[in-house]
C-alpha cells in the first residue's frame, strides 16, 4: 500500500485541436522522461496519420517521475483517442485511471466530444482536473472558459491552472495538481491478480502485447494468466513499463501501468476491457464494463486493379493484427469483382483504414458507399442482418426492415440552431431536447438514423455552422422504417456496387443526384449510355451520357508513328483504370464520387 501512495494514474480529456498531445509532450519534457534532444513533437502519436491529422487514434501510455514536497512520485499518463468512433476504447482507458486532466481551449470553451468524455470519466469515478489551455492566444477568454466548465460540466474551476502547452507556460501547476488531487491507487498487492486490458498492439517478435493496469496482485514473467472473458490461458514471457519506449521490468504490481507479453498470436485474444487474472489463483470478479466491440459502419473495399485481391487480403490481415475492431469478410461484386465487406467503429475509423491501406500497402482502392447493419425481418419469421445492399432479400419476402439509430448531441452557438434543426429534420431526426448551456452555447439532442449520419451529416453540419458545431453520438437501438433498395442501371444493367439502402422518402432525391453525378464522371463512349436510378422496376431518375463523337489522332507528321503509339498507350492506360460494368466502362472515381454528394 505504501508504494501505491506514490503512484498517480491519469489520462487527458480534450476536444480535437484543444492541445492534448502538446500538453502531454510538455509533461514528458518537464519530468525529464525524454531528453530534450530526443523530443520530437507529439511523442505519443506514433502513427504518421495521427501526426498529419493532429489526432490521436492509438493509445500509448508513458511513465514519468516527478518530485513534489520532497518525495518522488510515479505518474502514469494514459493517452485517450479523442474521437466519437472510439468511445469504448476511451472508456476502458478511463477505467485504468483514478484521475483525468480536462483540457479546455481558452478560445473555444467546452465541445460536445469533451463533454461526452467527461461524463464517461465521471461514470468511472475519476477525479477531474480542469486545465485552461492556449492562454497565450490574444483571443483567449480564460474566465469565460472557467465559467463554462462550472455551468456546463458542474465542476469547480476557479483553481484550474491557466497554461499554454505550446509555450510551456505553467506546466508545473498541472503536475502539482495531479499529485495533490488525483487519488492514489488502492488495490491489494497480496490479493489474486486482477489486471484490466485497456489496449493492445501487435509486435512482430513478441506477438500481441497487452497494455494493462494492474488492479490487485502482481504479474511477472512466468505467471500463468487467464483472460477472464475469452477464457484463454497463456504463460507470461515478459512484463514492462513505457518510458515512453517499452522497458522490461521485473514485475507489475497493484496500481502499476505497463505491458504484458505472453506469446499471444492474435490481438483478438487481448480485447480491451478483458481482465487478466492468475490461472492458478483467479480473482473472483472481472473488472466491470467489458463489451464486445461491434462494427457500426460497413463498406465494400476492392482493389481498383482487380488482380491485386491477394495483396488487399494480406494488407487487411496485417491491419487486423493490430486492430481487433476491424472486421472484414470476402464478398463478390458483379461490377468490381472480388473484394471485402469491411466493418468499422465509425467513419473516422473507416477513413483511417482506407488511408493506411493506400499509404502503407500502396494499394489503389475502390470503396462503395458506407452503410449500416440492417435487421431484415422476413415474412417467414426469420431475421437476417444485411450490411451489403446486394444481399437484401426480395421485397416480397420482407416483412419489415429495422435500422440502427443514434442519440446525437450537437453543441453549437445559438445563431446556428435553426439551420441545425433544419438539417436534423432533413436527416429524419426526432427532436428530443434543447438546453442553453450558457448564453453562447446550446446543446441539441436528436435521435437520428445512423444511415443518415454516415451519409453526409457531419460534413453538412460543419458547413452549415462554419465549423463551430461539434457532434457526439452513440448507437441507441433499432427502429422499423420504410427502407428501400435503390439500384443504379448503366446501359440497362444493374451495377451492384452502386446500390444503396435508403429511406423511401429520400430515394427520389438521392437517385437523381447519383444519376447526375455519374453523368459527370462517366466519360462518353462509343454508344449512348442511359443512367437510371430505380426502385425495383420503377425508374425514378434518368440521365444520358451522349455517344462520343470525336476520338481520332491528327495526321502522321512525317511518319511519326511512335508519337501516335504513345498517345494510344496513354489511352490504353486510362482504360485500365476503368471498370467494365456490362458494356460500360466506369472510372474508379465513379464509385467514390457518389459517396459525397453536395448538400443542396
Amino acid at each position: 500500500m505504501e508504494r501505491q501512495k506514490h503512484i498517480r494514474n491519469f489520462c487527458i480529456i480534450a476536444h480535437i485541436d484543444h492541445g492534448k498531445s502538446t500538453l502531454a509532450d510538455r509533461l514528458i519534457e518537464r519530468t525529464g522522461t525524454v531528453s530534450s534532444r530526443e523530443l520530437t513533437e507529439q511523442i505519443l502519436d506514433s502513427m504518421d496519420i495521427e501526426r498529419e491529422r493532429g489526432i490521436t487514434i492509438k493509445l500509448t501510455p508513458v511513465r514519468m517521475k516527478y518530485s513534489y514536497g520532497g518525495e518522488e512520485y510515479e505518474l502514469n499518463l494514459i493517452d485517450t483517442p479523442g474521437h466519437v468512433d472510439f468511445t469504448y476504447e476511451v472508456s476502458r482507458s478511463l477505467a485504468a485511471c483514478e484521475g483525468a486532466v480536462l483540457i479546455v481551449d481558452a478560445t473555444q470553451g467546452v465541445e460536445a466530444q469533451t463533454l461526452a468524455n467527461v461524463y464517461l470519466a465521471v461514470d468511472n469515478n475519476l477525479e477531474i482536473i480542469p486545465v485552461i489551455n492556449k492562454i497565450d492566444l490574444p483571443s483567449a477568454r480564460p474566465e469565460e472558459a472557467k465559467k463554462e466548465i462550472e455551468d456546463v460540466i458542474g465542476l469547480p474551476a476557479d483553481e484550474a491552472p491557466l497554461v499554454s502547452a505550446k509555450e510551456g507556460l505553467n506546466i508545473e501547476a498541472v503536475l502539482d495538481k495531479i499529485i495533490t488531487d488525483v487519488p492514489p491507487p488502492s488495490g491489494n498487492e497480496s490479493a489474486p491478480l486482477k489486471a484490466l486490458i485497456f489496449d493492445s498492439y501487435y509486435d512482430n517478435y513478441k506477438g500481441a502485447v497487452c497494455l494493462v493496469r494492474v488492479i490487485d496482485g502482481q504479474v511477472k514473467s512466468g505467471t500463468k494468466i487467464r483472460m477472464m472473458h475469452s477464457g484463454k490461458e497463456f504463460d507470461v514471457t515478459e512484463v514492462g513499463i513505457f518510458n515512453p519506449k517499452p522497458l522490461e521490468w521485473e514485475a507489475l504490481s497493484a496500481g502499476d501501468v505497463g505491458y504484458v507479453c505472453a506469446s499471444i498470436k492474435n490481438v483478438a485474444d487481448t480485447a480491451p476491457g478483458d481482465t487478466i487474472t492468475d490461472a492458478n489463483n483467479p480473482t473472483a470478479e472481472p473488472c466491470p464494463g467489458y463489451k464486445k466491440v461491434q462494427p457500426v459502419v460497413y463498406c465494400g473495399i476492392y482493389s481498383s486493379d482487380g488482380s491485386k485481391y491477394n495483396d488487399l487480403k494480406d494488407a487487411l490481415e496485417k491491419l487486423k493484427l493490430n486492430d481487433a475492431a476491424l472486421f472484414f469478410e470476402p464478398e463478390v461484386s458483379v461490377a468490381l469483382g472480388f473484394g471485402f465487406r469491411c466493418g468499422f467503429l465509425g467513419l473516422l475509423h473507416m477513413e483511417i483504414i482506407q488511408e493506411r491501406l493506400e499509404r502503407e500497402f500502396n494499394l489503389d482502392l475502390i470503396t462503395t458507399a458506407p452503410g449500416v447493419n440492417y435487421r431484415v425481418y422476413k415474412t417467414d419469421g426469420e431475421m437476417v442482418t444485411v450490411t451489403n445492399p446486394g444481399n437484401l432479400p426480395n421485397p416480397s419476402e420482407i416483412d419489415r426492415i429495422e435500422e440502427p439509430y443514434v442519440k446525437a448531441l450537437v453543441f453549437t452557438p445559438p445563431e446556428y440552431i435553426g439551420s441545425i434543426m433544419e438539417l436534423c429534420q432533413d436527416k429524419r431526426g426526432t427532436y428530443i431536447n434543447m438546453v442553453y448551456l450558457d448564453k453562447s452555447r446550446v446543446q441539441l439532442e436528436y435521435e437520428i438514423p445512423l444511415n443518415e449520419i454516415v451519409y453526409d451529416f457531419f460534413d453538412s453540419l460543419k458547413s452549415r455552422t462554419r465549423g463551430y458545431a461539434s457532434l457526439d453520438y452513440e448507437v441507441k437501438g433499432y427502429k422499423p422504417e420504410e427502407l428501400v433498395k435503390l439500384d443504379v442501371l448503366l446501359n440497362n444493367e444493374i451495377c451492384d456496387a452502386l446500390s444503396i439502402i435508403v429511406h423511401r422518402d429520400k430515394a427520389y432525391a438521392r437517385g437523381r443526384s447519383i444519376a447526375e453525378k455519374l453523368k459527370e464522371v462517366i466519360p462518353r463512349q462509343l454508344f449512348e449510355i442511359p443512367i437510371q436510378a430505380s426502385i425495383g422496376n420503377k425508374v425514378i431518375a434518368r440521365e444520358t451520357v451522349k455517344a462520343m463523337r470525336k476520338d481520332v489522332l491528327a495526321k502522321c507528321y512525317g511518319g511519326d508513328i511512335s508519337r501516335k503509339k504513345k498517345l494510344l498507350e496513354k489511352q490504353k492506360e486510362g482504360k485500365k483504370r476503368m471498370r467494365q460494368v456490362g458494356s460500360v466502362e466506369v472510372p474508379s472515381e465513379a464509385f467514390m464520387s457518389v459517396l459525397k454528394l453536395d448538400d443542396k
Partner: protein
Amino acid sequence: MKTDTAQQGIYVHIPFCRSRCAYCGFVSSVCEHSDKDYVEALVHEIRERVSGTVDSVYFGGGTPSVLTGGLLKKIVKALRECAEFSADCEITTEANPDSFTDGFAAEAGECGVNRISFGMQSLNNDILAAAGRRHTAEQALAAVERAKLFGFENLSCDLMLGLPCSSEKDVIASVKTLCEQDIKHLSVYALSVEKGTPLYERGYKVDDDAAADVYEKVCLQLKGYGFERYEVSNFSKRGYECKHNKKYWTLAPYVGLGVAAHSYDGTRRSFNTSDIAGYIAGLRDERRETVTASDALEEYVMLGLRTAEGIDSNRASELCGCEWEQLKSRELNELIKLGMLERTLKGFKLSEKAYYVMNDIIVRLV
C-alpha cells in the same frame, strides 16, 4: 547505314518557317540565315544513308517552299546521285501559299517535282489571321493558279477543322471553292491543341462535337465532288492517292532525312536529333527502337484501320503468330454488334460512323 529495300520512300524535313502558326508544335525554326548550312548537312546525310530505288520523295516541313536559289535543286541532285528514281516516282513538296513564288515553282518543276501540297487550312481571312497564317485566301487561290500555270496538275490542299472562329459554313465554302479549282487531293485534319503551342497558351479548346459534325458534312460534300476517302483525313480523285503517305499506313519502309525526321527500315525506327544547330554540326540519330512483333501488330492495326481498305486478317495473323481473329474474337464481335466494324473480303474495316471515334476501337483491338 545504307538501306537497300526495293521501292522505298524518302522524307526530307525542311524545318524553316517565316513565322510560327498558332497551332504548331512541330520542330521548326523561324530564323532564315542557316538555310544553306542546313542543306549542306542534308546532302551529307543523303550520301550516308540513301541508295537503292526510290518511288516517292516528300518534302515536308516547316515550309519547303522557302528553299530557293538552287537549294531544292541541290538536295534533289544529291538524291538522284545516290538512288535510282523509279519511272513513276512521286515527288511531292509541301508549300505555303505566300512563299510559293514563281522562282520556287520554276525550281520545283526543274527538279521533277510532280505533286504540290498546299497548306491552306482555310479560305476565310479572319480564320487565317486568328491561326497566325501568313497568307490570305486570295493568295492561296493565286498559288493554285500559279502551280497550274507552271504545269503542276497533281495538286493537294490541307484544310483544318476546329480552328478558332471557324464554322461549318466556312469549311463547306472552302471545300467548294477548292473543288472548283480542280484540285486532285484534299487533306482534312482535325485541329488538336498541343501543349506548348500558342493556341494552348491562349486556352483555346476545340468543340469536338462541332468538329465531328463538320467532318461528316465534308465527307458527304467531297463524295459529291467525286472524291474518295482513302484514309480518315485524306480524300482524292481516283488514282491520286498520295503514294508517300500510304507507305506510313502500310508499314512500308521509308528514310527520313533532316532534323527530327523519322525512318523505318522494316524492323527498326530511328529518330534524328531535333536540334537544328546540332544537326548542322553533324549529329544524327537521337535514338532508335526496334519494332518487335507485338509492336508491328499494334502499328498495323492502328494504321490499317485509318484506311478505307482496312486490315487484312491474314497479315495480322502473320504478325501475331496466331489466328488473330480468334485472339480478338470477343472484341471483334462486340464492335461488329455495335456497328463500328464491318467485314471485308480479307478482314475488317471501320464503318462510316466509326471513323471519327477510332482511337477507342483501336485500343480495344491491340
